[in-house]
């Protein structure tokens, strides 16, 4: 009995995930032919609440691409892969406190801020580096133009409020 109930609830969950994935996919399906540009797949996956790294994203795309990459991803291939990701709760987002601690690591002197140059250096040289566009985008919202620095605690709070 318990197994039946579990199965039912999983089926319901899967059905709901399917609908959610379809919605997210359709918004980027400009020609309404069940395909999206491969360059938008990362955005779709992230819009569903997952936070894969660039490396993980690259692997995911390889899974959903055609054998001969066409530059487009078909919904039929995307759906099962994405459903698994959601069911397994993979690539969970970073909690706010971990994010804060990450900034604090880059600010060992505990000034409460990072200079513009410091942020640029870390974001474009370390980890999975930002493109110039990504860097400019982040700076436009994060930077305090008077001090030319990023008060990261305020920045994080602002972003979190914005998302909620």
């Amino acid at each position, binding site marked *: 009995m318990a197994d039946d109930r579990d199965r039912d609830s999983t089926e319901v969950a899967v059905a*709901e995930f399917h609908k959610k994935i379809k*919605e997210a996919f359709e918004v980027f399906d400009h*020609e309404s032919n*069940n395909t999206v540009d491969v360059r938008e797949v990362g955005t779709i996956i*992230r819009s569903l609440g997952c*936070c894969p*790294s660039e490396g993980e994203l690259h692997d995911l795309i390889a899974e959903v691409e055609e054998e001969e990459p066409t530059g487009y991803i078909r919904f039929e291939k995307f759906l099962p892969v994405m459903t698994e990701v959601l069911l397994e709760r993979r690539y969970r*987002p970073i909690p706010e406190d971990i994010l804060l601690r990450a900034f604090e690591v880059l600010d060992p002197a505990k000034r409460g801020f990072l200079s513009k140059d410091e942020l640029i250096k*870390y974001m474009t040289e370390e980890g999975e580096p930002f493109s110039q566009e990504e860097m400019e985008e982040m700076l436009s*919202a994060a930077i305090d133009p008077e001090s030319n620095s990023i008060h990261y605690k305020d920045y994080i709070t602002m972003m979190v409020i914005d998302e909620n």
Partner: protein
Amino acid sequence: MNTPNLEDMGCGTSSATKDKKSEKALKAALVIQNWYRGYSARLKTRQRYALTIFQSIEYADEQGQLQLSNFFSFMLENYTNVPEKEPGLVTRLFGSSIQDKDRQDYLGLIEIPDSYCGPRLQFPLTFTDIDLLIEAFKQQQILHAYYVLEVLFETKKVLQQMPNFTHTNTSPSKEITICGDLHGKLDDLFLIFYKNGLPSVTNPYVFNGDFVDRGKNSMEILMILFVSFLVYPNDLHLNRGNHEDFMMNMRYGFTKEILHKYKMRSVLMPPIPMDGDRAEKKNKLGTATVALGIRTSGSFSEQLTKQEWEQVIDILWSDPRGKRGCYPNTNRGGGCYFGPDITSKILNKYQLKMLVRSHECKPEGYEICHDGKVITVFSASNYYEEGSNRGAYIRMSSGTTPRFFQYQITKATCFRPLYQRVNAIESSAIRMLKERMISRKTDLIRAFQLQDRNKSGKLSMGQWAFSMENVLGLNLPWRSLSSHLVTTDKDGNIDYMSGFQDVHIQKPVKEVQSSLIETVYRYRSDLQIIFNIIDSDHSGLISMEEFRSMWRLFKSHYSVHIDDSQFDELAERMDLNKDGSIDFNEFLKAFYVVHKFDQLNKSDTKLA
């Protein structure tokens, strides 16, 4: 999270602490980058959703527009008073052709006062007149109705002699520029001319229609384009869009703009002794004449067969899609969707290389589809809302690939950060959506309750989304939008009444049923158009009798189930009765949505 193996990094013989430090920094950077990319993606998606909402609602309104056209046919068949009482009504609805011999009659009615300090055109027009107009419009001057009429008559005369298809030649030294919808956005046209140069023999242009409606300078755009056309008839090409239509103009703002700029400003001023006929003509100037200036083939009941009219709709309303074949455009309610196979077939048949069209707003100002054979170009930036989209134009010549130029007009001197812009368009879109919801509140609640067997006040996400889509007729990502519209409990179930809690329609009179209020609110644009058309002398008043019979007709055509007595009572109680006439603008203005968290009281100022 994958952290690269430090040994692979070839750090050489750094000390252990240095390695550990850089490893920590690396991990921290990864965390921040990962978080930021997720955040950025969600921002872009929110922007997309907002655009989808705007577009869905726009197309649903267009459906409403076509339904209104049907209503007028229905009305003429059923409104028995009309033919005897109001011969003018038929002509107003379906246009009349003003002959050129009328031209002097019209122009004779108007005198330009000495006090007029706006631009003065000199016929025959030359490029100096184009410059003159542009400078004047930059100073926000208004062109006198006399010149407007002259330009319209001239343009009509020239257009009538032209065939439906125009062939033009280009070469690498004479590229042609193609622009899409402008919709009354004068700043965009100025920007295009600034970046790309004014039209001339060496700088030809094609404008793909939809010059008017929505923006506030439809008249100015039209004047600049028509004057340029008259100066360079072989090098400035104007194509008709679906907004070059007098019914569309009544709903989407051009008519209102004209009435506001020309009636209020007294540019059509007497003193001219008038008999009844002339008064009729004079007031017609505000609306019918200008619209007819655009119409190249006269009224549809006189000159176009039903089949021709359907062809016109197909050309002006259709959209390309990825699915093969040709099928009805259900979003807009007119025209069709055509697939890549159709495009190939037609292009091959007429030995054409590509189709450049407009009609659809694109976030980047243009979009290429059907394997590069169809280009959509849209030139009104910030069309739905500040920050909603870029505009674009194309330069091309035979033998070269098209080049695209994008832009975005912005009021601020520097761009606001992305998240602020997204917040703005998102709020605007959600607001519009909530107004839709409240206008269908009764139907929505009925649909929800049908599914809510236990009367718990809650539905699953699937059930709620299903009802929303069905009742509102909007194909939107409801699950993703639900967080903006309703409250969800910890089990993921939706409290469906929560969607109505911070909006309501202002009740002009307390005792009247909500369903009636909702219905009038929902159809307020249609009702306004209908009443305006009946209001033959543009006084803003119609007789109580006309008001009531129009409502009954409307009710029957739109299958609205409201008691007649309710409606009569509402009209009476609102006490807008002025000697047996009703001020219908005041009547309709009284129906508006109040958003609880608004600083302003009126959310729907467009009706004013």
